[in-house]
Structure formats: structure tokens, C-alpha cells
């Protein structure tokens, strides 16, 4: 008989090894899936994971990894602070949209003036947009005890409607022949979040993501506030004895994650996306939740997880085009990754025992 026994201490070994095991299991079962679809499993996995990094056109795909990964990392870092403290911001997608709207709105308000101050002003506006949107669930939770999961999630749909309204109304390009969507910020130098070194994929959003990672790392390991975050998540009662103000912590966690999501939206709209449009948001705010957990809520882990997710997106598109794999198969493959990670997580806290259970 096989049974599970709770470990007296969570296994550090398994905490580090499960992500690798999960990736390996995903390779195995993903390969089986691809084989069942009549594709060469080894070639499929090589195309997804090898081609973008070391293939013939890696010079193009490597920068794309940064472009695709930066918003994921930036948002996931913010979310991880809250998740550690048991504050569940599920609405990063909405804060991402609001950041883009505030930021782009700030830039477009100055059009066509050129000034070096416009872009910094947009960055501030973007951060503010995400922050204020996250403050709604935060204040409601602190003041009235509402559930931040529901409120933040519902506000995503409000933000989407606002995005549609802005694309069709206030921010619509007056020279766009009546079609929805704002002016293209890529063609407005002062507002364009251009690559810092051309062709490197390194835009200001990537820089911001790296800074956020370093800040989060220092905060969690060296700062009193980081201690408050960790202890609240692990032992809420102990936190209260340690003098942590739970309300203020909720405001901090939601505010920070909203701000970072807003920044991600601003850097995306001013750079790779270029314009506010009805379909501007493509789910970064939700995917970042996966990234945060895949990265074990650890800043360095999140960087790796963000790049891994970006890799599966980019490699997945290549596999579709080169091998004719259906998009749904790629999505199942990505889903497997999270599934195996969460399933194998069990072994951090439990171990398998063979034989008879001692107590009946």
C-alpha cells in the first residue's frame, strides 16, 4: 500500500527540485500528446524550447523573449508580494489596462508637442492608473471587509469596457477614418518607449522589471516590511503580535501590485503594442498569476518562470507554423506545466510511504 506522510518540516530539496521535475513531466506527457497528434514529439519539443534560443533566427527571438517576458515578470513580482501575505489580487489585467489608459492618455494629451518630459510623465501616470484601480478593492477590503479576489476580478471587466469606450471615443485617432484605436505612439517620438539599444528587445519595461526584481529581493530579505509580508502569510496571529498593521499591509500589497501592473501596461502600450485598441490586453495579468506561482513567489524564480512562459509562447507559435501543431495543443502543453508543478508540490510537504500504515 502506498500512502502519504506529512513531513515534519517542508523539504527544501523538493521545493527546489519540483519545478525541474514539473518541466520534465511536461516534456514527457507533452511529447505523448504531440505523438498522439501525429507529430514527432522530440522535434516538437525541440522546436518549442530550442529554436527560439539557439535556432537559426535566435538573433530575432531572444529579444522577443524580453519583450514577451518583461510584462509577465513586472506584474508577477507585484502579485507575489501580495500572495506571500495572503492578499489575493486577481485583477492585475484590469490594473494593466488602466495603466495603459492613464499613460497613453497623458502622452496623447501633449500630442504633437515634443519634450523629454513627456515620457516620464506617462510613466508616472501609468503607475498611478494601476495603483488607483487596485486601491478600489484595497480600500473596500480594509474599510468594509469585502473579498479582494472578487472585487479585483470584477474590475477587470469594468476596465475592459472602459478600454473599449476609450478606443472608440476620447482616445480615438482623429485621423483614423473612424476606425477604433488611438494614434500610434510608436510614431510619436516623445511618447515612444523605444528600444534602448536597437534590436536588443531592451525597452524601459524590461529595465523596470529588473529594477522591480531587485527591489523585491531586497525588500523580502532585508527589510522590515518584507518581514511583515512574510510573517503575515505564514502566521497571521504572530504577525499581529509583531505589530503588523493588517490594513496597511493590504493597502501596500494591492497598491504595489497595481502600480507594477499599471507600469507594465504603460510600457506595453507605448512600446511593443503602440496604441490603445479594444483588444489591447492579451491576458498578461492572468498569465502573471501562473508565473508568480511557477516562480515560487521568489523574485529570481519569477524571472526564470517569466522567461519560460515567454519561451513557450514564442516557441509555440513557431511550432504551429513549422510543424502544424494546433494552438490548442500548445495551450494544453502550457497548462500541463502548471498542473504538474502544483501536483508535485505535494512532495514538499508530504512524502510517499510504501507498506502498511501504522495506525489504522
Amino acid at each position: 500500500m502506498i500512502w502519504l506522510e506529512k513531513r515534519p518540516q517542508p523539504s527544501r530539496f523538493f521545493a527546489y527540485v519540483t519545478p525541474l521535475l514539473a518541466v520534465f513531466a511536461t516534456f514527457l506527457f507533452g511529447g505523448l500528446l504531440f505523438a498522439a497528434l501525429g507529430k514527432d514529439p522530440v522535434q516538437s519539443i525541440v522546436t518549442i524550447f530550442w529554436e527560439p534560443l539557439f535556432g537559426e533566427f535566435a538573433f530575432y527571438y531572444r529579444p522577443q523573449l524580453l519583450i514577451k517576458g518583461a510584462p509577465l515578470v513586472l506584474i508577477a513580482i507585484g502579485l507575489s508580494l501580495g500572495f506571500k501575505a495572503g492578499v489575493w489580487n486577481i485583477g492585475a489585467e484590469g490594473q494593466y489596462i488602466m495603466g495603459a489608459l492613464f499613460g497613453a492618455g497623458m502622452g496623447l494629451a501633449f500630442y504633437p508637442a515634443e519634450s523629454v518630459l513627456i515620457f516620464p510623465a506617462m510613466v508616472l501616470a501609468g503607475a498611478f492608473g494601476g495603483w488607483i484601480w487596485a486601491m478600489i478593492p484595497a480600500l473596500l477590503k480594509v474599510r468594509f471587509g469585502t473579498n479582494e479576489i472578487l472585487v479585483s476580478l470584477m474590475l477587470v471587466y469594468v476596465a475592459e469596457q472602459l478600454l473599449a469606450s476609450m478606443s472608440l471615443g476620447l482616445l480615438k485617432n482623429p485621423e483614423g477614418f473612424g476606425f477604433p484605436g488611438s494614434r500610434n505612439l510608436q510614431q510619436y517620438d516623445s511618447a515612444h518607449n523605444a528600444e534602448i539599444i536597437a534590436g536588443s528587445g531592451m525597452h524601459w519595461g524590461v529595465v523596470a522589471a529588473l529594477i522591480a526584481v531587485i527591489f523585491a529581493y531586497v525588500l523580502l530579505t532585508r527589510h522590515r516590511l518584507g518581514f511583515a509580508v512574510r510573517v503575515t502569510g505564514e502566521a497571521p496571529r504572530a504577525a499581529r503580535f509583531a505589530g503588523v498593521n493588517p490594513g496597511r499591509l493590504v493597502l501596500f500589497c494591492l497598491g504595489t501590485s497595481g502600480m507594477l501592473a499599471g507600469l507594465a501596461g504603460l510600457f506595453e502600450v507605448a512600446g511593443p503594442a503602440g496604441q490603445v485598441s479594444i483588444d489591447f490586453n492579451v491576458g498578461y495579468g492572468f498569465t502573471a498569476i501562473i508565473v508568480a506561482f511557477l516562480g515560487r513567489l521568489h523574485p529570481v524564480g519569477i524571472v526564470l518562470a517569466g522567461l519560460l512562459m515567454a519561451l513557450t509562447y514564442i516557441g509555440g507559435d513557431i511550432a504551429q507554423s513549422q510543424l502544424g501543431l494546433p494552438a490548442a495543443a500548445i495551450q494544453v502543453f502550457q497548462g500541463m506545466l502548471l498542473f504538474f508543478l502544483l501536483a508535485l508540490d505535494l512532495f514538499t510537504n508530504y512524502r510517499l510511504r510504501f507498506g502498511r500504515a501504522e495506525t489504522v
Partner: protein
Amino acid sequence: MKLTTLLASAAVALGLAGGAYADGHEKTKVGFVFVGPIGDGGWTYEHNKGRLAVEEALGDAVETVYVENVAEGPDSERVMTQMALDGADLIFTTSFGYMDPTINIAAKFPDVKFEHATGYKRADNVSTYSARFYEGRAIQGHIAGKMTKSNIIGYIASYPIPEVIRGINAAYIHAAKVNPDVEFKIIWAYTWFDPAKEADAARALIEQGADVVLQHTDSTAPQAAAQEAGNVVTFGQASDMGQYAPFPRVSSIIDDWAPYYIARTKAVIDGTWESTDTWDGIGPGMVGIGEISDAVPADVKEEALAMKAAIADGSYHPFTGPLKKQDGSDWLADGEVADDGTLAGMNFYVEGLTGEIPQ
């Protein structure tokens, strides 16, 4: 942008963007970027049928590749770039939102030909193409006006862009012509493909009394919702959606991209490809009318087919005056026909429609 030159020169250096056969591949490679899944049963399904028709018609001379479910924005730029790098000679980008990305990437790969569906921006290596769906809408409106008993026709609109507004106007004009009491209820879904949203919209319209539901979205979810309700008439959109015939689906507007895709691919093979703007309708066969089922009375079917024939041979234009705009101002005088420029940028309702176009 500097990346432009870098990428272009890198591609040229690798001999990849140097014309149809420069990198030694013998087949002409044709890429397709799809906004939805190829199994959507509507818009993308028909584009994919066009792709398969290219393979069938040109056989060993071509190789086609596609990527489905590509988000508009940076993801679509990456997919186009990837296809161009992989040696595509011709790339069809099949959604309005791919417009700026197509123009951006086309500038980086001057020797690759691009074809963008339903947009208005062109370049030396970017053509645009679209179909005169409104011709089908006119016939649909005629049947709808005759079929409705509640005099309420529901309309699931996608985005308030000229193409969609044209469809609403064309359907309304012809429904009101045969049934002056008809009223249109319009729901804006802000999506091209979202079965859940589309089903919700259809149910909401049915609850408001609509017994005919027209859709400008791509999934079959509204058909299923109508079937559930039992007494609601629908029309297939983009594809025949024949699995819901003979009722609720009584007819359909079918996009037939195959002849165009074959012709354009041939032009690339022959070296005669040029940047053009194509806007074809029922006449050239880009828009088809799916079989009108027996649920439609024989006389109505006959009238509809007569209108189809008249549109096809050019003797009737769906936008023929006298027509007024919603605000009561004059648009077309008696016998006057709308010009393509006005139609292409249409941003107003015709007289009789209620509600406002979202701004």
C-alpha cells in the same frame, strides 16, 4: 526605426528576403495569420478553407503554413516576422487589427508580399482585400423582414467599425422595405469570436422579443442559442453553418476566399504580383449566399434569389436612394447609388435605426 534596418540587413545577409527562390527553396511558401482557431466554424474556418484550396489548386508548387489564435498587436508582429524569416514569399494577415503590424513588418521585409484583409493601409508590398459582405446582408435583411412575426430583429454586432455598420444598414434598409414596422435591437459584443459572449448576446436579444437574430461574430454559439429557444430564425455568418439548417439557420453569408488566394499566390509564382486594393462581392464570387432552406416560404426565397441575381449582375446596388441618415438629413437622392469611399468609411446609421453607434 533602427531595428528595421538591422533586421532587414540581417535577413538580406542570410539571403532570406531575396525574392521567391533566393534561399533555394523550390516551393513558393505562403503564410496565413489567423485571429481565431481554424475550427471556429466561421471567419477563420473560411480563410483556412481558402488556404487548403491554394494547396489543392497549386499542388507541389506551393507550401502553406499558418498560425491560429494570434492576438492583434506585438504577438502578430512576431508571428509575421517568424514566417518571413522562415522564407515565406507571401503572407495573408486575416484580421482588421493586424493592419499596423502588417505595415511594420512589410517595411522590414521588402521582398516578401503581404495581403491584409479588411484594412485600408497599403504599401508597395502590401495589398488589401475585403469582401462586400453588405450585399449578402441586403438579402439577409429581406428574408429577415419577411420572416419576423414579432417585428423585432436582433443583431449581434462585433466592433463599431465601418464594415459592421455597413452590414447593419444594409440589413435594416431591406428589412424595413418589406416590413415597415420592423425594429432592430443591436448588441455590441466587442469581439469577433467569443462563444460565451455571443451566446449571452443572443439570449438577451431573444428575451427582448427578437425572433430573428443576425450576427456579425464568428462562432455558431448564437445558432445554438436560437435552436434552444426553438422559434428563432438565424443566418450563418462567414461560413455556411449548415449544421443548423434547415432551422434555425435559414440561409447564410459565405466568405469564399479561395479564388482570390489562388489568384494572388499564382501572381507571386509568376512574378506578376502588384499591390492592389480588392473589394469584391457576390458577382465575382467572393461573397456567397448559403442555400435558403425550406423554412423560408417559396415566394420569399424567390425574391431573395432575384435580388441576389440583380446584385451579381450589377443592376441593383444595396445602397440605392432615396435614403436618409438617422438624423433625418439627406444622404442619397432618388436612384443615386452610394460611392465606395462613403461605404468604406461608413460611420452613421440610416434613418429608422434606433440607438447610437458607440463612440
